[in-house]
């Protein structure tokens, strides 16, 4: 866990996309896909807690970050940064067909994964009910309801699921209790992480097959089968 000072260098709003913020920071602070960086406005204590930032894409001297970030941030805002924190996605090297599922409020946290996979010859399918931004043409997109018929296609799945929606996941995937996915899967669990692992406060606890795990330090990306869902 390391501390850095960064800066909001640019904010963009492109058609169909969420507001995105570019963070200027040292290379060591840039989170890998699925990891997060805790960011606080250094000069504004009205933002009482830090914000977890996920990378959408790497940029010159920093990265573009996924929402949501405080509306008080403007270009030039100085940020106290801690991280990168947590465990990110770990994709198999021989990946041929990547299945993606986005059940949160944005697809942004999966964007780095999408861009990276688009540079390979692998196939990629996203299942979501979200309104989507412009995405690489290599990506096929289907509604969540069609996920059940496509379970045999991917050889690896990456999911972004809010903690409160984990109970719906079995229905979305069309799996009865006791049955699992036919391929390995990892899930990025999204939930407020107020202490970012500093205190093990328990606010982000998620039930696993080996007791409770903390999204802030054991996650936010977990092997899906290690969790109770």
């Amino acid at each position, binding site marked *: 866990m390391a501390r850095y000072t960064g800066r909001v260098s640019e904010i963009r709003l492109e058609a169909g996309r969420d507001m995105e913020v570019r963070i200027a920071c040292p290379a060591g602070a840039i989170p890998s896909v699925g990891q997060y960086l805790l960011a606080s406005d250094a000069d504004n*204590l009205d933002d*009482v807690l830090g914000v977890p930032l996920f990378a959408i894409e790497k940029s010159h001297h920093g990265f573009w970050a996924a929402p949501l970030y405080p509306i008080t941030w403007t270009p030039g805002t100085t940020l106290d940064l*801690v991280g990168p924190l947590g465990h990110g996605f770990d994709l198999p090297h021989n990946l041929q067909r990547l299945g993606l599922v986005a059940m949160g409020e944005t697809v942004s946290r999966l964007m780095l994964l999408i861009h990276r996979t688009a540079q390979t010859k692998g196939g990629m399918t996203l299942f979501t009910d979200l309104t989507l931004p412009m995405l690489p043409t290599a990506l096929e997109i289907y509604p969540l309801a069609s996920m059940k018929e496509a379970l045999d296609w991917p050889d690896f799945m990456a999911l972004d699921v809010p903690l409160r929606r984990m109970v719906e996941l079995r229905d979305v995937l069309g799996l009865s209790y006791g049955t699992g996915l036919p391929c390995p899967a990892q899930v990025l669990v999204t939930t*407020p992480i107020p202490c970012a692992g*500093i*205190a093990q*406060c*328990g*606010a982000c*606890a998620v039930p696993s097959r080996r007791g409770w795990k903390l999204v802030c330090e054991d996650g936010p990306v977990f092997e899906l089968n290690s969790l109770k869902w």
Partner: protein
Amino acid sequence: MTKNDLVFEPPIMNAAGCLGFFPDLHGMTDWGRLGAFITNPVSLTPRTPARGCRFQAYAGGYLLHTGYPNPGFSQVLRRHAGHWSGSPVPVIVHLLGRGTEEIAKMARRLETVEGVSGLEIGVVSDASAEMVAALTQAASGELPVIMQLPMERSVELASAAIQAGAVAVSLAAPRGITQAQEGEFVQGRLYGPAILPLALRKVHELTQLGIPTIGAGGIYTQEHKNAMLTAGALAVQLDGLLWRGAGFSSLL
């Protein structure tokens, strides 16, 4: 810090639940700037995280409802006591007890653990003065005892704690209710600068009564800390400020 001479130098520490179970020397905290370390709340038996919504932000602060999860007293000792003996600052163990027997059992055991400098005892929000006195007596022994009282009822309960042998009282985060996104009401502890005026009033009232008081609640700046100390607090406890990226540098 000795049993009857409660001095924290500098007069700053974390509140229970804000920095984990041991002073993490590889973490972000500048331990030389803290006068003591208080562990996360520890109960005799394991506690699991609360069900349902556990965090709600609101203007000026946030609500937490975690259930004070911990692996239980024996596991905490096994995993963390070794770190306490090597701590660069005095370690105060925060105990949660359902009654006097549990508190007494844990307190006696901690008197034999190297590196423990004191105890802080958490009190449920509806405790009577008699219960506070009984818990204080159960905890009292070789280690100094700080009674953490519900902030809203601290003036009502403080004399019972001190008369029963506590060396000081501290203030637990006040409780409140917010409405979650799904419409459900969520009860929990309140944190953030918005509660500072309430906390400052309690510190002022307690110190006017001659109660040794450790101030807590909404301290985010040097001015907040100074206000607490000027009001008579013998030290202050920090909470959510420690979770921001810069830690407590705004107090220095």
